[in-house]
């Protein structure tokens, strides 16, 4: 087929099954926008390229497919840096397509030139700069495959403007399928043996289980063995919250039973997880009595932070299927469950109502979950509201919680929700956002309104950069330096802002209005909705393992250290 580089790009994207691109045009990428005008691919015109990147991430996580974002050279491309870093940390498969200045002027500080490949080297899985338009079909096919295969991640394709404009012929390419790693039977046998002889085992489940689509295998293996499960922030939804074997989330703001299970375990079965410092706390004090089985598709993760006694390189789905095949019986875990059951009964997740009559943020999130249910998709920003969204929404299925775990990017919630809703139009999508985070990317609500993407946003408006304020309360003697946002004084007025952005704006300030407001928001289907939930400023996230301390020092609430004081 005779075409141009740009025509080949759009054709190649169609051929790899791309159905939506989030992007913004500009000089260098302009040739690509011309054939896009005639394409069946939907283009969502964002208001800031960061929004395009996070939308691609949200789309990828809601659908399990590769998300695509597109930007022009220079500032357009550099605006994608944060989402690329975010996708790299959380292993999200996205392809970023950037325009570049003409080949002849690369390296001359030309107008809107930025060396985006070099800028993003440490935060991309791979990147290309295409110099021959005939290479475009192969590069796009490879980029999609690289993004999605092995440990997923972001791939950048940088396209000089004249390459897009040059005539070429389009020849379809099918990249060779990437083989999945073959499991070592010896390691599987060793793992099964350790599992069989352990008395206090626990499944420590990470986001890799969601990426590999292994939630059904996990459930089967857990039920077969009767071993308790903990799901990290990135794995919320990988195992149903309603399941009796589930102890909740481990880590800095994890549940007491989940943290205790890791600390008292004699065996960790770590699946698609990377022993992040927010989970382990002080590493030398993490799970001190446990042997470790660590399965991950990325060999570089095994024994990176904690030495594995049995390391298994493989896709979590294959690993669990192989383990299920060799493990035949339940081990006797009565003593272990007796201990954990006691903790579950004594330390359920909970919260106190503010004494000044203000609304409890946890209650708002609990009610959103209750009234919306587990078929919805929930995204979150970063801060206290994110932790409450991880704790108080009840997740039952993988892909239902989308958040920025590794990078902790404020402003993630709204654009990620937009991408998720574009990929899953039949699901309700709630962005649970902070009043600080919301102000970083709320302009994408204009995109949602214009494009008919009816997301729902719950602003947990505590008037402050709440998570930072919590640390100031706990570790800086209540010296609240630069954490007050003025959002309780209506700077801005979120209801008016929502209205100006083409959304329905609602406000809720008391417990009695919560259910009614949520139902009112649920009834809106033709436009985005923003609810300003005005909540107390002093609510804190508990339990907590303070940064730099060991997990044994977990505080169920301020000053209460159940494990530290425990008599073994």
């Amino acid at each position, binding site marked *: 087929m005779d075409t141009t580089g740009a025509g080949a790009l759009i054709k190649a994207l169609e051929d790899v099954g791309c159905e939506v691109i989030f992007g913004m045009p500009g000089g260098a990428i302009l040739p690509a926008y011309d054939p896009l005008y005639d394409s069946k691919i939907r283009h969502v015109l964002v208001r800031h390229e960061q929004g395009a990147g996070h939308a691609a991430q949200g789309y990828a996580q809601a659908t399990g497919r590769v998300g695509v974002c597109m930007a022009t050279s220079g500032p357009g491309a550099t605006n994608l840096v944060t989402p690329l870093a975010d996708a790299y940390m959380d292993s999200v498969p996205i392809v970023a397509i950037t325009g570049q200045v003409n080949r002849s002027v690369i390296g001359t500080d030309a107008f809107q030139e930025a060396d985006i490949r070099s800028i993003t080297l440490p935060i991309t899985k791979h990147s290309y700069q295409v110099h021959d338009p005939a290479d475009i079909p192969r590069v796009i096919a490879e980029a999609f495959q*690289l993004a999605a295969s092995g440990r997923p991640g972001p791939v950048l394709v940088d396209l000089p403007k004249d390459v897009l404009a040059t005539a070429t012929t389009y020849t379809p390419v099918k990249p060779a399928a990437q083989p999945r790693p073959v499991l070592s039977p010896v390691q599987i046998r060793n793992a099964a043996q350790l599992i069989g002889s352990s008395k206090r085992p626990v499944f420590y489940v990470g986001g890799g289980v969601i990426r590999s689509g292994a939630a059904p295998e996990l459930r089967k293996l857990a039920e077969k063995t009767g071993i308790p499960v903990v799901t990290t922030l990135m794995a919320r939804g990988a195992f149903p919250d309603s399941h009796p074997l589930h102890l909740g989330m481990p880590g800095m703001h994890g549940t007491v039973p989940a943290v205790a299970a890791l600390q008292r375990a004699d065996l960790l079965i770590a699946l698609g997880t990377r022993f992040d410092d927010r989970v382990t706390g002080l590493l030398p004090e993490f799970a001190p009595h446990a042997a470790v089985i660590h399965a991950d598709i990325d060999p*570089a993760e095994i024994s*990176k932070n904690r030495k594995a006694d049995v390391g298994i390189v493989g896709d979590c789905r294959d690993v669990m299927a192989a383990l299920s095949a060799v493990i035949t019986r339940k081990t006797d875990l009565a003593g272990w469950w007796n201990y954990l059951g006691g903790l579950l009964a004594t330390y359920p997740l909970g919260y106190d109502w503010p004494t000044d009559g203000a609304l409890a943020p946890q209650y708002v999130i609990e009610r959103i979950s209750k009234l919306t249910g587990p078929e919805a998709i929930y995204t979150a920003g970063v801060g206290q509201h994110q932790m409450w969204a991880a704790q108080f929404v009840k997740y039952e299925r993988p892909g239902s919680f989308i958040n920025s775990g590794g990078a902790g990017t404020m402003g993630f919630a709204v654009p990620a929700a937009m991408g998720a809703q574009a990929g899953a139009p039949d699901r309700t999508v709630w962005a649970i956002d902070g009043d600080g985070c919301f102000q970083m990317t709320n302009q994408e609500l204009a995109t949602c309104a214009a494009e008919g993407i009816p997301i729902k946003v719950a602003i947990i408006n505590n008037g402050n950069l709440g998570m930072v304020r919590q640390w100031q309360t706990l570790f800086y003697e209540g010296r609240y330096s630069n954490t007050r946002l003025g959002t309780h004084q209506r700077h801005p007025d979120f209801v008016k802002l929502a209205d100006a952005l083409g959304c329905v704006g609602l406000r809720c300030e008391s417990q009695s209005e919560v259910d009614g407001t949520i139902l009112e928001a649920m009834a809106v289907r033709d436009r985005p909705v923003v609810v300003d939930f005005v909540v107390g400023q002093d609510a804190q996230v508990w339990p907590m393992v303070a940064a730099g301390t060991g997990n044994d020092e977990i505080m169920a609430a301020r000053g209460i250290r159940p494990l530290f004081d425990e008599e073994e």
Partner: protein
Amino acid sequence: MTRHSLSLLLRNEPGALARIVVLFSSRGVDVESLSLAPAERGDLSRLDVVVDLQPGRTVVQLIKQLGRIVDVKSVVDRTHDEALELGA
């Protein structure tokens, strides 16, 4: 600090060397010496590098991280060969 001598084969693709060097700098690896030369196969280059690792970081870890780079075909640890060559 522990010293290691690594030998890599990489594809002659733009940015391949940059990706390796950036990996060293972002993971806190000290580069003692580095040399790049054409390999026998025309589309590959050979990179010989001597690095110092921070305490607690292992060469196995570094080799796996280098192995993740798409344009890196192979990585071998030659530390012991060199020790032999030097008669150490």
